[in-house]
């Protein structure tokens, strides 16, 4: 049978990082095709390419056997490819009905938008899909995330696509809503159309997909009919590689640990739910789980960025209220955050390296409000040397440095504050192996000097190789704590997907009935 959509040898790089490496994919008419893999495996990049959001560096795409160039979402729509991303294509100030029919609203004989018909049609369309709970007159910005996802799906379907792409399109939905969406997917399949489905929920994948393709490190590594390969085997295929990075040796846990940081019942809206844990002196505590399960918010909450955080935070045994980043960095608390997006939150790109490095410690070099430049310069030189930051001069702008060196500048900034607790968000993302190695050594050295490190990473091997313990977050809760023997990539993946960690004795393989 001729595939409905076929992508061949697709390569895509972002700033030197390879997202897709000669990946290929084909999707038959009348099928529901699941793409699975770790974060950063290339699934999302592939579907963005198919829907015209991202343009590949190399490779060909055929739709019904004809070669096509999909260089904008409009072209993709015309080719019959409709995509549902997480909240990406909804306008928050417009109503549900306006969003669904934005490109082709019903019109009066004068050519103006016929509002009555618009709402009537939206109401009818939503009801047909089984989304009758969504009010067509509500503004998107007023809706909870789940309803927004339903609107996204309705919007894609309103264009009558031959291929529907759902990229984590069901992640916020309840079981019942997911089944409504599954019914729609089955209807599309019965009409000989196809659905490309990305989900991190393995249960969903096994329930609905008829074909599964596994992605790893930007390549498609296996495709097979659903039900022919066990879960354990699939998880191994997703991870695939051996540990490559050399990690410093872990410390032997002392019997009586001094807790630096104790968190009790930390909650924030629906995003963080009753998080409790303690971080010991000299400990590297990992945060695992899929992206978007509350890890970012947990770090931001500890750093005083979020309002209305409930729960208690103790630093060195004393309860603290952390209401701003300045308070978090202050003498009694001494927290440091290396944020998610170093380019916007970690660095001021157009400013020189030296000014970025001393941004958090300016008061140390000031006398009577004036900067003592020789002291500042001495501190800068020391830390550049210590971290081996490769710069022609401390006066060049941070923008001109490579990703690895930029990240080192962020680290240098907080190193100078002599923080006692470091919050690190995906510190090594997009950084070369050599620099990663140096950063691992540095982290362990900081811990050995008595600092506590809370470390979120999307790289499983880091969590396993570097951390003393790992907390896995799932839907805003700590769903598992892994340490020692149980701290393995298999268990991290399993717990991140909401499954139980595998004990040795029980049989891990579950096949579909």
């Amino acid at each position: 049978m001729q595939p409905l959509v076929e992508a061949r040898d697709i390569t895509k790089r972002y700033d030197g990082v390879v997202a897709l490496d000669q990946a290929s994919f084909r999707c038959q008419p009348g099928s529901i095709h699941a793409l699975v893999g770790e974060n950063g495996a290339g699934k999302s990049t592939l579907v963005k390419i198919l829907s015209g959001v991202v343009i590949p560096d190399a490779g060909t795409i055929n739709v019904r056997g004809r070669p096509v160039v999909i260089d904008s979402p409009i072209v993709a729509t015309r080719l019959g490819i409709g995509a549902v991303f997480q909240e990406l294509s909804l306008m928050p100030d417009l109503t549900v009905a306006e969003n669904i029919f934005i490109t082709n609203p019903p019109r009066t004989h004068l050519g103006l938008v016929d509002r009555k018909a618009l709402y009537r049609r939206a109401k009818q369309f939503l009801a047909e899909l089984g989304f009758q709970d969504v009010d067509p007159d509500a503004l998107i910005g007023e809706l909870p995330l789940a309803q927004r996802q339903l609107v996204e799906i309705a919007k894609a379907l309103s264009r009558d696509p031959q291929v529907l792409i759902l990229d984590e399109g069901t992640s916020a939905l309840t079981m019942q809503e997911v089944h409504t969406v599954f019914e729609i997917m089955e209807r599309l399949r019965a009409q000989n159309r196809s659905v490309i489905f990305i989900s991190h929920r393995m249960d969903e994948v096994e329930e609905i997909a008829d074909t599964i393709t596994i992605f790893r490190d930007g390549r498609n590594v296996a495709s097979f009919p659903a039900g022919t390969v066990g879960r354990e085997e699939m998880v191994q295929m997703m991870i695939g590689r051996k540990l490559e990075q050399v990690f410093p040796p872990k410390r032997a846990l002392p019997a009586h640990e001094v807790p630096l940081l104790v968190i009790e019942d930390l909650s924030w809206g629906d995003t963080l739910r009753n998080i409790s844990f303690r971080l010991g002196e000299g400990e590297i505590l990992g945060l695992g789980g899929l992206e978007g399960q509350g890890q970012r918010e947990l770090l931001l909450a500890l750093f005083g960025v979020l309002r209305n955080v409930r729960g208690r935070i103790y630093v060195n045994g004393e309860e603290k209220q952390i209401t701003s980043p300045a308070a978090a960095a202050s003498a009694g608390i001494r927290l440091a955050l290396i944020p998610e997006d170093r380019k916007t939150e970690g660095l001021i790109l157009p400013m020189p390296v030296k000014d970025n490095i001393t941004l958090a410690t300016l008061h140390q070099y000031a006398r009577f409000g004036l900067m003592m430049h020789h002291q500042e310069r001495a501190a800068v030189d020391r830390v550049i040397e210590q971290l081996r930051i490769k710069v022609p001069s401390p006066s060049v702008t941070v923008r001109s440095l490579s990703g690895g060196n930029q990240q080192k500048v962020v680290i240098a900034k907080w190193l100078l504050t002599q923080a006692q607790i470091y919050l690190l968000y995906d510190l090594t993302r997009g950084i070369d192996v050599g620099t990663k190695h140096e950063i691992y050594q540095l982290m362990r050295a900081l811990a050995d000097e008595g600092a506590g490190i809370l470390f979120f990473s999307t790289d499983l091997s880091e969590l396993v190789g570097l951390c003393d313990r790992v907390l896995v977050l799932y839907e805003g809760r700590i769903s598992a704590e892994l340490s020692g023997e149980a701290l393995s990539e298999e268990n991290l993946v399993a717990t991140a997907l909401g499954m139980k960690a595998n004990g040795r004795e029980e049989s891990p393989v579950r096949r579909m009935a």
Partner: protein
Amino acid sequence: MTTLSIADGAQWLRRFFRRNFKVGIAYVALLALLGVYAGLQPRLFTKLVITATANQGMALVLASMGQTAVVLTAGIDLSVGPIVSLSNTLASTLFPDSVPGVIGVVVLVLLVGALAGLINGLIVVYGRLQPIIVTLATASIYSGFALMLRPRPGGYVPLWYGDLLTRRVFDLIPTSLVLLAFVLIFIWAPFRRSRLGLAVYAVGSDERAAYMSGLNVNRAKVAAYVMAGFLAALAGLFLTAQTSSGDATIGAVYTLQSIGAVVLGGTSLFGGSGGVAGTIAGAFVIRIISSVLFFAGINPLSQPLFEGLVLLIAISLGAARTFTLRNRLETMR
């Protein structure tokens, strides 16, 4: 099922009030101001004073409506004032006595205004430059043209043209208000209710989402600037009727006052939400403040001080929402 239950009606009403909260504030401010005004100026409710008050606000209302279109796309147009000046100097230079001649000049001036807006829009969209800096530059250029046309105030405006626009229809309704109704019904409403108008709101609400939805983002933006240029030119033509002469600096205040009127009227400077209903009230508030201060006997030299205070208070009321944001990073967008 067309019967509305009481619960549905109540929900509709609540939603209406929530969505039009900021517009409501603008009208409350306007009514309060008119109340004070009526106390100070007992002759407010005579035909003459009503007409004068309407005329006094009309040019700013028109210019601010155009500004609204641009602000809705999350842009800003600093050349609104200079286009008002250009329109005024062009009209006062070209106006003949004859009716057909004047009509021809009016059409020409409106086209020049639309062209100025088109230039703004094309540079913003295809130059990928920030609207504030593009229109700062073109503002200077349009001012330059106005000054070249009319280095000194003067020019010729037929008496009947001024009388026609600044008096009353059937000696009852101020012509300026009829003109406003005409603009609302035949220019703004079709724009707002067209697909293009929907696209303008969509682009301002989330440009990336609009692009992902397959909308023509560039066309929507350019259309907004054209609308701003056109309405600024119309404002200039009305001003010409009011002053019966040409002056290359007459539009200068309209740039910032139009932005003030837009914000006062509840349109978000981040784009996507708001509309001209609020803007009209905002423009009248800004214009009536000075009359009120005058009748209150406040020293004309300290008028800007009080105008600024009133503006600040009114805008603060609309910004109260920020206190409900739970992630501090979101207040910094």
